[in-house]
């Protein structure tokens, strides 16, 4: 080999265009949101860094890239979102929901945004698989969104995961105006009776098993997600496997979260996210982000409306604010509702009800994700 050839081999690296540079800025912006604004930092920081790597030749699609190894090991196999869910399950206490089962309905109402957005996306010309993946941002639950998107439209993983996690962080900014708009001051002041049924240890242990069985039979596509979430919860409630419960809440979720974020970020190559030399600017990215925001808003609206409906039916015994927690976004949405009720009336404590509705939303999101997978896959 002669010198000029050698030099061109060394320096003729992968092309770096303005689109790549812009993607670096986008990755940097995600890291900024994570570090300075603390928007879901444990996910947005790895996603941002992964995005930077993806546009420096280390994308999930590049041969011989270590990000590809991680992507294949954890995203293609769907293990990472499931491992995260094992940890999340080990951190959730379903007792507030078990003590007030009727709150479960709110967890269903808060999922309408998924389907509403799917409708709109289909109307805008997205094919069904993409429309469904965009809709699932309305689950407002990262692992569910990633799990469903991996199966239906993996090329959209980047924008969908970013939307899912960013909007989750934006709960305290997006929800309050809608809540104030849709509820009267009087409704927000409704106090809720505080008479939960006692929840025995047997119930707490049996619950995750029963949910796994029932949901797996009704919606087999949701089975892995619900099984992982409930496995974590079983480890927590069993009380005899403290080692495993702690491993789920620490080692397992931390490692899975870090690599999940990196691998998702590594799908955000310039050509998929911003500009494809073949097909031009990827407007779909902006549309995904926009439609995802809409899904969030619609979720909140239908949740609140259903809350108002329950207030009506029960003769004013339900504070409609807790309808907004049915969207999932656990546990921020639950805290926010309780806080808004307190703002109207410093003696109005609805935190337990809000957390019940919020955990119902978590269940509802997973179920909706599974149902969506099944019905859309059946249609295609």
């Amino acid at each position, binding site marked *: 080999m002669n010198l000029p050839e050698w030099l061109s081999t060394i320096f003729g690296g992968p092309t770096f265009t303005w689109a790549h540079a812009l993607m670096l800025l986008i990755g940097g912006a995600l890291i900024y949101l994570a570090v300075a604004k603390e928007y879901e930092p444990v996910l947005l920081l790895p996603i941002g860094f992964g995005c930077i790597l993806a546009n420096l030749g280390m994308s999930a699609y590049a041969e011989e890239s270590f990000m590809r190894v991680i992507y294949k090991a954890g995203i293609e196999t769907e293990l990472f979102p499931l491992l995260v869910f094992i940890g999340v399950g080990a951190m959730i206490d379903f007792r507030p929901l078990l003590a007030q089962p009727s709150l479960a*309905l709110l967890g269903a109402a808060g999922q309408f945004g998924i389907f509403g957005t799917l409708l709109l996306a289909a109307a805008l010309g997205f094919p069904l698989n993409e429309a469904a993946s965009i809709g699932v941002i309305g689950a407002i639950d990262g692992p569910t969104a990633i799990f469903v998107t991996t199966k239906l439209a993996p090329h959209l993983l980047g924008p969908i995961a970013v939307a899912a996690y960013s909007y989750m962080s934006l709960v305290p900014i997006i929800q309050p105006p809608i809540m104030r708009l849709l509820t009267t001051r009087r409704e927000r002041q409704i106090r809720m*009776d505080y008479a939960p049924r006692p929840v025995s240890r047997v119930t707490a242990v049996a619950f995750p098993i029963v949910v796994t069985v029932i949901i797996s039979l009704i919606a087999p596509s949701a089975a892995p997600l619900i099984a992982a979430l409930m496995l974590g919860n079983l480890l927590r409630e069993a009380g005899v496997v403290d080692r495993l419960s702690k491993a789920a809440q620490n080692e397992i979720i931390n490692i899975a979260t870090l690599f999940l974020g990196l691998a998702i970020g590594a799908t955000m190559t310039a050509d998929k996210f911003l500009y494809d030399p073949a097909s031009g600017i990827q407007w779909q990215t902006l549309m995904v982000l926009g439609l995802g925001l809409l899904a969030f808003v619609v979720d909140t609206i239908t949740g609140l409306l259903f809350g108002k409906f329950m207030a009506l039916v029960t003769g004013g015994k339900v504070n409609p604010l807790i309808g907004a927690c049915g969207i999932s976004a656990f546990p921020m949405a639950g805290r926010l509702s309780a806080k808004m009720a307190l703002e109207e009336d410093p003696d109005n404590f609805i935190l337990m009800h809000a957390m019940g509705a919020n955990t119902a939303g978590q269940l509802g999101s997973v179920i909706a994700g599974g149902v969506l997978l099944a019905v859309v896959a059946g249609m295609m």
Partner: protein
Amino acid sequence: MSILSQALWITALGMGLVFAALILLAGLMSLMTRMFRERVPSPVSTDSTHPSPDRERGEKARAAAIAVAVALAEQEQVTARPITPPQPIIVGAWQLGMRTRQMTQKGEMKRRG
């Protein structure tokens, strides 16, 4: 079928299934809490919604505890970290009694483990 009518069918069936599943779960939860009661009679009776004077005092104590919980929760929100929900705080006053036995057990394990 046009894509839009497909989407409408998906929406109808999807929301229907989601509601059906959660209604079923609500029923099962209701059943389970009734079936598996703690053998030790719970000090908080479950059916009275009209508080007795004694009950009411407990209610206020609990309310106060929850107020503290909410205050703490708010503080936390500044650095919202949803992956580590501060469950012990959310659990709050109300379940404190119920779970004492279990937690004692866990505590022992931690000391030993």
